[in-house]
């Protein structure tokens, strides 16, 4: 019973402390923003009395160990590290250790493979940007322009995506805070109309966007670096505080009668029993139809109130989205997850009890799940010969479904597609009642009932279910797959190969370590450290830093599976939710503010670097190098401020109504940049025989090979999912293609001039 009391008191404390922690979050956030502006102001002071371009875009090549190490670490850790990664750990379990495994060598790869040499070559050529290096190393203007074009192409998409990610994170963090919701409610209607994503998103976008644009524009590279340092420290402190709290509290939450083990062993044992939840649509009702609209927040626990539901009792659900129960409506349909594992169910019922105890409005506690529905598609055959005007697809009719060679029977709830009249060949969205796979005599009985129904409604002959989603995970839900949270490849909602099949595990070793090395945003930082001693100490520092962050995150969010059941309903909120839960349980709710600042800090540190990269490409690589080589410092300074501001505002406007597939765009641009830039830069730095023809071919070849796999995927009807030959990620194909094409073209074309080779590969004589 100890765990029962614990969970109950934990939830009560959590709710009571919600307001307190909400204020802490706001307070921490405001202090944080203030700190960022102070840093920008100090950095702007540094701009005085120094060469403006070199200082604004490269910090005068003077970064010391802490600044260099933490700016690189923080820039590499985007918002994904503190929002997406915890959500993935929670949803897929221990296999995320393998997913992130290459981070054991990421610091030494991204800093050591190119660091010393790119810094030296940048100094020899006087380069401030990556295109600068390529242009000067090969003495070829076209190469510089091709690389600028690719950087602007990739980075612009990425910047819009990161702006959206930053705003979404802020919305997630501030969403539960009353003061924020009051501010949103007070906004004029026209403000919210700028974005299809709502007034709260717009407010977060403006706050995030203006803060990051102002401090980056005003303070330049040093502002970005020092805010990165501050953000890096925030991230590390957050993880160090959370780790012991998570293990301790998760262990306490496990029923001691279920396990003889303690600590993490008990957590792992408990996870081994878990089955991923089921995704369904539920029909909710209240004892009396509401007389006015009732809001049901996302994450609300609901059950069938002890009644048998579709033949099963003891079912518990959690809503996935905000829902309005309309006045007068008997039932409200909501997307939800159903908890399947017995141990998860017990904790979920306890969480529901606590929720209902604190339900002062009496709505949540009275909600009853009356229906469980699955999504399906109903197909009318293209050669349907009957009279469709007589066909009525109404609740309760039976329809056949061909399921992997077995014909099954589903029970229709409703057609959800809006159609005026049915036509042959139509495929309609529909709900069917809770689908259960029956076998043998039960299945035969269903077939008999279906055949009888056809004698009554012969016009239904031929109409069938073309696809049906029963809501179970494609991998991890079957009896033989129990334990998927502690084994590889991990559970997956859609893929029967699981979350991390072996080919993907290999791809991620390329993705993080090799693709990270090929990111121009990392290369720019490698051009900024002071000396090789700084580089050596920084590689060591980042290695320790990543060790202290990434593996502990896996442990913390495996513990979250015990502490916070049902968070698949809002997986992206797991980080702030966990921070509030852990700190509230030890009576230190104010600490949540600091922990919650970590993901916001992470995305901010990525956005500011990208912003500066695009403006440096415009000012240095296009304007100064190609349009006006004799530009005065005053002109350069003015343009740098204007371009940084304009690019930032452009991204902010683009993020108001962002395109679909934003997460896919982030993945595409990250791997595309590496496929285009890594081989040419490696050849330029390490191969004296390399020439501009070979390196341009490597750049275009890598870009083309990578892009073509996305195009093939699109043509195959996979949307933004690329074609994967041999199940390998496009980054691997792109990199191999780039290196091979570059090598062949280089050998087939004339060698570089002796002068260039001497300049970059031989020791300069003193005097």
């Amino acid at each position, binding site marked *: 019973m100890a765990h029962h009391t614990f969970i109950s008191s934990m939830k009560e404390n959590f709710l009571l402390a919600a307001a307190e922690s909400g204020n802490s979050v706001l307070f921490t956030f405001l202090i944080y923003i203030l700190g960022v502006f102070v840093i920008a102001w100090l950095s702007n002071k540094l701009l005085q009395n120094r*060469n403006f*371009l070199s200082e604004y875009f*490269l910090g*005068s*090549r003077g970064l010391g160990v802490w600044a260099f190490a933490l700016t690189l670490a923080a820039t590499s850790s985007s918002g994904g590290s503190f929002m997406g990664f915890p959500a993935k750990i929670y949803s897929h379990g*221990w296999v995320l*250790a*393998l997913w992130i*495994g*290459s981070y*054991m*060598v990421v*610091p*030494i*790869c991204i800093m050591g*493979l190119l660091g*010393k*040499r790119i*810094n030296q070559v*940048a*100094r020899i*050529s*006087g380069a401030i940007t990556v295109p600068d290096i390529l242009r000067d190393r090969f003495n070829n203007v076209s190469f510089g322009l091709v690389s600028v074009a690719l950087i602007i192409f990739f980075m612009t998409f990425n910047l819009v995506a990161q702006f959206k990610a930053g705003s979404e994170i802020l919305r997630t963090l501030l969403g539960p805070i009353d003061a924020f919701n009051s501010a949103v409610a007070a906004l004029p209607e026209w403000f919210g109309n700028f974005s299809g994503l709502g007034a709260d998103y717009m407010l977060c976008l403006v706050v995030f966007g203006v803060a990051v644009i102002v401090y980056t524009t005003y303070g330049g590279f040093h502002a970005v670096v020092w805010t990165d340092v501050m953000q890096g420290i925030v991230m590390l402190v957050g993880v160090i505080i959370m780790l012991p709290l998570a293990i301790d509290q998760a262990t306490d939450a496990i029923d001691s009668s279920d396990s003889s083990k303690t600590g*993490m*062993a008990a957590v*792992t044992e408990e996870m*081994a029993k878990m089955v991923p939840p089921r995704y369904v649509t539920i029909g909710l009702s209240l004892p009396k139809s509401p007389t006015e609209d009732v809001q049901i927040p996302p994450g609300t626990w609901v059950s069938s109130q002890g009644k048998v539901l579709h033949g099963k009792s003891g079912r518990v659900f959690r809503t996935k989205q905000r829902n309005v129960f309309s006045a007068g409506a008997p039932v409200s349909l909501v997307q939800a997850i159903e908890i399947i594992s017995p141990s998860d169910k017990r904790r979920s019922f306890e969480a529901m009890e606590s929720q209902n105890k604190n339900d002062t409005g009496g709505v949540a506690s009275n909600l009853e799940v009356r229906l469980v529905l699955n999504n399906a598609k109903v197909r009318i055959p293209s050669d349907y010969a009957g009279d469709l005007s007589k066909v009525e697809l109404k609740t309760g009719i039976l329809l056949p479904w061909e399921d992997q060679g077995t014909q099954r029977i589903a029970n229709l709830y409703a057609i959800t597609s809006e159609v005026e009249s049915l036509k042959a060949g139509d495929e309609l969205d529909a709900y069917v009642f809770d689908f259960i796979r029956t076998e043998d005599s039960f299945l035969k009985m269903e077939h008999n009932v279906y055949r009888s129904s056809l004698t009554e409604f012969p016009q239904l002959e031929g109409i069938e279910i073309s696809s049906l989603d029963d809501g179970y995970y494609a991998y991890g839900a079957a009896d033989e797959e*129990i*334990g998927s949270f*502690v*084994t*590889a*490849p991990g559970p997956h909602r859609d893929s029967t190969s699981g979350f991390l099949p072996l080919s993907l*595990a*290999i791809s991620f*070793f390329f993705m993080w370590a090799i693709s990270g090395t090929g990111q121009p945003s990392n290369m720019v930082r490698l051009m900024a450290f002071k000396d*090789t001693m700084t580089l*050596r*100490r920084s*590689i*060591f520092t980042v*290695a*320790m830093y990543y060790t202290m962050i990434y*593996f502990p995150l896996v442990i913390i969010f495996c513990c979250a599976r015990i502490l916070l059941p049902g968070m698949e309903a809002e997986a992206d909120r797991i980080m702030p939710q966990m921070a509030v839960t852990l700190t509230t349980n030890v009576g230190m709710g104010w600490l949540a503010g600091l922990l919650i600042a970590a993901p916001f800090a992470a995305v901010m540190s990525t956005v500011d670097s990208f912003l500066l990269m695009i403006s440096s490409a415009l000012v240095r690589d296009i304007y100064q190098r190609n349009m006006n080589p*004799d530009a*005065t*410092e*005053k*002109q350069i300074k003015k343009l740098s401020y204007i371009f940084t501001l304009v690019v930032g505002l452009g991204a902010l406007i683009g993020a108001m109504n962002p395109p679909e597939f934003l997460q896919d765009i982030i993945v595409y641009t990250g791997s595309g940049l590496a496929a285009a830039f890594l081989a040419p830069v490696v050849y330029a*730095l*390490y191969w004296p025989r390399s020439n501009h023809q070979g390196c341009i071919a490597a750049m275009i070849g890598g870009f083309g090979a990578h892009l073509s796999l996305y195009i093939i995927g699109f043509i195959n009807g996979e949307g933004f999912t690329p074609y994967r030959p041999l199940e390998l990620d496009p980054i691997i194909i792109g990199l191999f293609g780039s290196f091979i094409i570059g090598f062949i073209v280089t050998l087939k074309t004339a060698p570089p*001039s*002796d*002068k260039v080779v001497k300049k*970059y*590969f*031989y*020791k*300069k*004589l003193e005097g």
Partner: protein
Amino acid sequence: MASDLDRDQYSSEPDPTFVNSRREAIVIFCTWFVALIWAVTYCKINGYDIEDPANIPTTLGMPSWVVWGIAAPWLAADLFTTWFCFCFMKDDELGIAGDEEHLEHAVEVDG
């Protein structure tokens, strides 16, 4: 004549910073490859297709395949990185910031 003069400014020996960087890069690439082979092979053999996940072997409370496939090599990689940074990697001359010199001439400082 100009190119002869340019050539005369450089010795016939390769730049030591280039030579050391290349040697270090090769060692790092081999380290990445070893990490890939160890982690993926070990996890494939011990982490995939486990017959009885309910009784999965644990080490330090974590699944053993995670500890020996990822955590232990991670610590080994940290030890290697420490050795690499403080014993193997050379301190080299990076040269004078060329852009500072270059810009002094190219950009007219507005008074």
